[in-house]
């Protein structure tokens, strides 16, 4: 694939379009746009220029320019992605939407909000909380991520079992095509079969089909009451087997988070948390929410009882935010705690049919002992979405790790494919898992995807090098 470098002329055109202050060239400033939350050393690549336009028309002009001059363009939100989706792997232009963060409308009658995609997702909830409303398509990365990134990855998160993933809350999009045309897709509509559902083709396309500059999102009533349970089990199997029992009783938790022994130990040691986790082989963190505190608490009790019947060692209850924070801290700090143990790791995002989780656990053990690496595992048990994390032994030489990592990933993906699973549930393919797509996706499906890409982006300038490799 041949792209043109960003010439002086292109830069002066960018300045004309976006204004001098919105065009960054200083290498020190460009550096932070060269990577996301994946390893900078492994995947990072510098952009040639970063543009931070403030309007949809400016975005469209920039895309037209890139398309005309065959310069690659990579859209970017907060840079908190976990698959390298926002990395400008071919250099060129990074188009950061950080300055497109306006709320265009809050429609209380239709319960929608029209916002630009550079808004920090957390901010959306702050804005509507007072009115007792809530945007549920909200992943776990808390303070930093932006709506645009959530849309690009079709982010999931910890509440998907009850509320579903981002796509359920995206009703319409303002979209800039790879040729620089602007179009509104969808609308404030509960039903819409007028033509193909392009909105939901774009959601989750990892920025390869164009740039979403604004979205109509669905708001729902804020569940003010919450009750959390931390359930300790002797084995992962016991923990996982509780999940269908709970769901089949018509109890729908907001989250059912799974943590294996190694994740719990690492996080608790890191937090100095004194829970009696020594005899515990796995934990579930279950959250119930709703409108009325006493109803929610009694439902949580019912869930707790079911867990005890399934052989849980102990069930802890958290009915206020401070105690809830204490429980969630264990889950949220796993990744950070593992990074302190060894920063070199591969955070995976496998997804299997929920009932297959029990079968995944012995596979992880097998791969772990076969390759002599640790694979702590945690994630969203209710969704079958697990963050198995391959962690390098701090003593292991880097070359050996790099070899083993690829082999172990291959083994992992093979075993979950056999179980009916897929290699990414919510983080996306991006750069990181691109090489495995050929092996684990049927050629027919991959060709359909590539055909869509070619039809939308004839010059292949829009976030090239992600999900799949494609030739003219």
């Amino acid at each position, binding site marked *: 694939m041949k792209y043109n470098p960003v010439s002086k002329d292109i830069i002066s055109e960018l300045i004309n379009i976006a204004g001098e202050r919105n065009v960054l060239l200083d290498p020190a400033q460009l550096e932070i746009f060269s990577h996301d939350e994946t390893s900078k050393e492994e995947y990072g690549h510098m952009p040639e220029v970063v543009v931070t336009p403030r309007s949809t028309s400016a975005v469209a002009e920039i895309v037209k320019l890139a398309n005309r001059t065959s310069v690659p363009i990579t859209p970017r939100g907060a840079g908190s992605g976990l698959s390298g989706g926002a990395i400008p792997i071919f250099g060129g232009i990074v188009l950061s939407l950080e300055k497109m963060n306006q709320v265009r409308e809050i429609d209380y009658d239709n319960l929608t909000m029209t916002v630009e995609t550079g808004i920090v997702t957390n901010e959306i909830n702050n804005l509507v909380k007072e009115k007792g409303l809530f945007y549920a398509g909200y992943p776990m990365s808390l303070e930093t991520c932006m709506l645009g990134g959530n849309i690009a990855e079709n982010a999931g998160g910890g509440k998907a079992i009850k509320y579903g993933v981002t796509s359920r809350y995206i009703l319409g999009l303002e979209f800039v095509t790879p040729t620089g045309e602007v179009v509104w897709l969808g609308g404030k509509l509960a039903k819409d079969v007028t033509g193909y559902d392009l909105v939901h083709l774009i959601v989750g396309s990892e920025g390869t089909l164009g740039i979403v500059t604004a979205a109509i999102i669905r708001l729902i009533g804020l569940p003010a009451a919450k009750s959390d349970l931390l359930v300790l089990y002797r084995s992962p199997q016991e923990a996982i087997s509780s999940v269908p029992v709970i769901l089949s009783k018509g109890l729908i938790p907001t989250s059912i988070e799974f943590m294996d022994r190694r994740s719990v130990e690492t996080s608790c040691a890191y937090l*100095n948390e004194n829970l009696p986790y020594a005899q515990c082989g796995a934990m579930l963190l279950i959250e119930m929410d709703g409108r009325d505190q006493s109803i929610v608490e009694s439902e949580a*009790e019912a869930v707790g*009882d079911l867990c005890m019947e399934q052989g849980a060692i*102990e069930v*802890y*209850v958290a009915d*206020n935010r401070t105690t809830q924070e204490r429980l969630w801290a264990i889950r949220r700090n796993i990744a950070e705690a593992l990074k*302190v143990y060894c920063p070199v790791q591969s955070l995976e995002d496998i997804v299997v049919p929920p009932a297959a989780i029990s079968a995944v656990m012995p596979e992880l053990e097998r791969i772990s002992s076969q390759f002599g690496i640790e694979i702590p595992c945690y994630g969203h048990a209710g969704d079958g979405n697990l963050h198995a994390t391959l962690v390098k032994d701090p003593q292991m030489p880097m070359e050996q790790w790099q070899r083993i990592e690829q082999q172990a990933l291959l083994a992992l993906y093979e075993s979950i494919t056999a179980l009916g699973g897929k290699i990414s549930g919510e983080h996306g393919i991006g750069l990181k898992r691109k090489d495995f797509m050929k092996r684990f996706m049927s050629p027919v499906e991959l060709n359909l995807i590539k055909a869509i890409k070619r039809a939308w982006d004839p010059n292949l300038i829009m976030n090239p090098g992600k999900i799949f490799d494609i030739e003219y």
Partner: protein
Amino acid sequence: MHIIVLIKQVPETDKVKMDPETGTMVRSGLESIINPLDLYAIEEALMLKEHFGAHITVISMGPLDAERALRESLAMGCDKAILLTDKAFAGSDTWATSRVLAETIKHIGTFDLILAGERATDGDTGQVGPAVASWLGIPALTYVSSLEIESRTKDSRIAESDHNRTSSLTFLVRRLTEEGYQKVRVQSPCLITVVKEIASPRLPTLRGKKFSRSAEISHWGAKEINLDPASVGLAGSPTRVVKIFYPKVARGGERILALDEAAIDKAIDRILSTIGPIMGDGGCSGIHKVANIEKSETKVSLAKSQPAMQESMISLSEQLSSGPIVDDKPEFWIITERRKGGIDLVSLELLARARHLADSRGATLVAIVLGPSSKDEAAMLIAHGADSVILVESPSLEDFICELWAEALFELACARKPEVILGAATTTGRTLMPYLAAKLGTGLTADCTELSIEEGSGLLLQTRPAIGGNIMATIKTAHHRPQMATVRPHSMQPLPPDFGRRGSIIHVIDDSSLGKIISDSLALSVQVLALESNVKDFENLESAQIVVSGGRGLKKADNFKLIRELASSLGGAVGASRESVDRGWISYPHQVGLSGKTISPEIYICAGISGAVQHLAGIRTAKKIISINTDPDAPIHAVADLAIIGDLFEILPRLTAQLKSIYSSSSGSESKPEPRLDPGFSPGSVLRPGSVSSLGHGSSSPSSSLSPCQTKDTKLQEPDLPRSEILSTEAQHEI
């Protein structure tokens, strides 16, 4: 064993609003939780229950909604809960609250131990615990970090059914004080307030939750405990909030983006120039702290340079019968604190404040010294502003035992009727003063940062931060005397000593009256066993002039060495955020913030701390704040005078190296840098006359020459010297 735990339901501190009209907290729309510090008390009670068998009664006073907090404590494993709820209780200050709690406890009957958190995170006074003990006439042990039952083992369980009968137990406790851990033996029944170090709270279990949902919680009002509704609540509170205002939080300081080499250098330069004035010129003239202090001790302690003093001796019984002996002028008292045999700097700060107040009121300023002391110390107090010094020299008062001190002061106050009593808001002051105020039946305001005399009425206006420093409240004690307040350490500088001042010294003799107090009090069986000052990883943050703190950004325990090295290169103390203490990276005495220490250093440097409101509450009165954090949006940067947006792992080692090179090139090899302080006192130092006596008597051991009688005898014969000579003595010791 019957254990009573006092808990309070508090709003989550980061969301508190105040009603500017009424000066009370707007509780609606706030999630309420058990005061986090009370959780440690609950946990300690539960551990005692597990080991020895106990029945635990939890009591809370509050609105109906406080039942939630009680239910949670039942879910954790407590046995019984009582909610004190009555419209008549609304608006209670700490005095009125402690009275209701004490009456309730009397009503319940016998108990062995009362546990409570060291303070509540909303009111932040720490007064209710000691005041309850005072009402009940039992010992109060505060800031307790460990508790053991002496000569009891798991085998000798105390049957739970026995909870109505008080068995005599002996507790061994460790109190966390500014100087270290004080080990105390105390007999039951007693009241103990605990700090975080004592226990790590368990989580409520499903089983406990079910029990708590079905448990009946008794609701008691004024009627149930036989109190006149008019004597409780706002109506029965000696103190009134007269004004609420919001402190300026953002300092609007300088921000430096230190992401590359050049910017880091610039940031380090700015840090050095900010620290410079505190450390002395170019960072090198401040290093002679040790010498400086010794000379200043010499200066004030030599009998030659003492202020002119008139001495009298009076027995307490004489005092009691004769009534106030001074003229019509009202008396303002300060309670002096001593450490390791010298006067604590905080007492001199207190004198400076009280001097100003006494002058505007036309009052006599009296410093009270309890325990064996010397005339040197009295001279020191006079030189720093006291008009007279009352020495109650009983050896039994040497160690701080709250009920003994309170008893002695109570008798003295009844005799002399002071208008104002001020104490330092130290672990001692914050224990003694509420105990004494409850005895005297008067109000007390905790941890004031401003005091003034109201024009016209002559009343003491007491201003303190509350709700984690989110608001400032001005409080008045209009109809009760004395007006009492504790004052936050380091919220004022001591006055420069004036050795020309005249003052009187009154020795209160340990006669039968006081002797009786002491023997009675000893029957309470509180025994101070030891002060452990050389404890591993102990830190006296409160008196440090420079504090360097680290937080979660350090990533692991090992990295605290970066903080320790920087602190050591500055002669400062090491602080920490709650999270880093919770994670076990560093010990609790280092913790700064709402559930740790509140400090007012000259310079506060923090790295890898985001600045949660709870942390900011502990540093609002720091003079200069320097923050280092990679996150440009970290709240700490908004309150910093110098905000460095950069990586602590790059900045700290270079800063430390530069500081080390400055000091090693400009001073002697062995001297360690220390912040410079006017007027010549070191942070946290005590002024030890002992070392001076040793000059006079040729003894090499400072402590050997400090028997009270000896000092008294010799000093009385020492002649006054002409003023000029005093001046020259001073001049010699100027640095």
